[in-house]
């Protein structure tokens, strides 16, 4: 049972960050906000240290690639307030040319490998990260494989074309 409603989280955030975040949604009750890379570290720090909210647990950091959007990459943070038992999702959209965002390792040690994984698969630069190198892929790989321009199977293969399946 959530002790803190999504509206009160938004209200609390508005006291400090009025107009610095937008796109407030709550799919399946999970509050989702969007902000810019200039504000992300401030918002994360506020969420973590605020005595009322106490989002002290970093659940996950990952990224999504939307090649058709003007800002191609979305870095997604999931935070969890264990005290209030409420979650929040924060998205930051980044440019495709040089996707860079401040690191969250200054707030959570656990962000280290999550950001390395995100860098490994999407090429997001986490500025200030102590050890930003590949983690799961081979070291001499020169692409970022989770980007949508790298299809899973050989694109020249004709026998699995979508038209065979009526798609």
């Amino acid at each position, binding site marked *: 049972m959530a002790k803190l409603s999504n509206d009160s989280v938004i209200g609390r955030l508005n006291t400090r960050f009025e107009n610095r975040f937008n796109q407030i949604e709550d*799919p*399946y009750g*999970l509050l*989702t906000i969007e902000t810019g890379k200039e504000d992300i570290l401030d918002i994360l720090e506020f969420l973590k240290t605020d005595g009322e909210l106490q989002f*002290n*647990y*970093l*659940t*996950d950091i*990952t990224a*999504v*690639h939307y090649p058709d959007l003007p800002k191609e990459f979305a870095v*997604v943070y*999931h935070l969890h307030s*264990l005290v209030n*038992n409420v*979650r929040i*999702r924060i998205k930051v959209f980044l440019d495709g040319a040089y996707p860079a965002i401040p690191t969250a390792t200054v707030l*959570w*040690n*656990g*962000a*280290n*490998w*999550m950001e390395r*994984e995100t860098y490994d*698969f999407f090429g997001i630069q986490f500025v200030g990260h102590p050890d930003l*190198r*590949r*983690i*799961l*892929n*081979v*070291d*001499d790989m020169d692409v970022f*494989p*989770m980007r949508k321009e790298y299809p*899973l*199977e050989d694109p020249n293969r004709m026998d699995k074309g979508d038209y065979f*399946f*009526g*798609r």
Partner: protein
Amino acid sequence: MSDAISKIKLTDNRPIFIDNDPQDELFTLNLGPTHPATHGVFQNVLQVDGERIISGVSTIGYIHRAFEKIAERRAYYQITTLTDRLNYCSSPINNMGWHMTVEKLLDIELPKRVQYMRVIIMELSRIADHIICNGILGVDTGTFAGFIPMMVKREFIYEIFEEICGARLTTNIGRIGGFERDFNEVAFAKIREFVNEFPAVLKEFEALLERNRIFIDRTSGVAAVDAETALSYSWSGPILRATGVDYDVRANEPYSSYEEFDFEVPVGTNGDVYDRFLVRNHEMWQSLRIIEQALAKIEKEPKGVFHADVPDFYLPPKEQVFNNMEALIYHFKIVMGEIDAPKKELYHCVEGANGELGFYLISDGGRSPYRLHFRRPSFINYQMYAPMSSGMLLSDAIINMSSLNIIAGELDA
């Protein structure tokens, strides 16, 4: 970082120990990738002074299989087999977590009986996973005696899985919307037999180790972690609860009707190897309690219900497929994965055997996920291993890894 630590250099991204000082006694030890004591593919490049570890770097990814990329091409029901291979010691929990994620996406409400059946499966696999972890911890500290009877019971759990779905390790158990078939009478009889017979074995195992002076000397105070550090490293599962934080997804955000069950969330005090061992033992008792309650609850539900009514995603019975045009169409569409899911975004998590197993799913309205990210507890729990090993004895680092219960398949995904 001290001067000694900086001798491990990163050359071409690989940790390499550089020693130009002939006077010092430090040397590099490659613990892994296939060391028998690590129970899996783990490499740690350690700099050691005799038996004492001075610093270390973890190298992971040896069995990376690109599950998240593969999932972007597959239909929803085909991803279940990928989740099998995450934490292969308790694959049913992963399967159920994935089914529940898709059911949440499709807004499917399951009948109560199916939810209780799922609870039984998940708790059985939690017990199987904890048997492995605690049994191996006993072996690593020097006794085979407790391990063997426990493994016999784990084998029995696998027989139950075999009875239910035909597979043992990578189970692919259940379907989107329920189970592929009802549990048969043999399966129920075996579950009851397990519930009746396992307490004696577990009690014997506890009696052998919990008050054993040698075992306590070997594990107590080893790799102690305080709650604040554990939280800052995003630990979850039994190892977080051993530090004293009572975070359990089953209690905090109940899924599959866990809110109806009466169970406790055991916590430890100082987060050392001994506390993790105790927490896992207590969790096995609690799992047994849950299974007993679930068996009693199933009795009260209408018999023979084993799936929800979702014709778009749940295969029709085979005899109908051969005789009924509608059923044949649905069968074909489901098997080819041609049915679109709604355009939504969600995060669903279950309490896996070693932590919060999360599925972050973005659907763009197509036949397969636009993006699927697994929040893998082993991956996140393991990153503290190398930093916390500094200053530890090599033999302590080995039992520390055993008690963290890192599963290579989940670590590398």
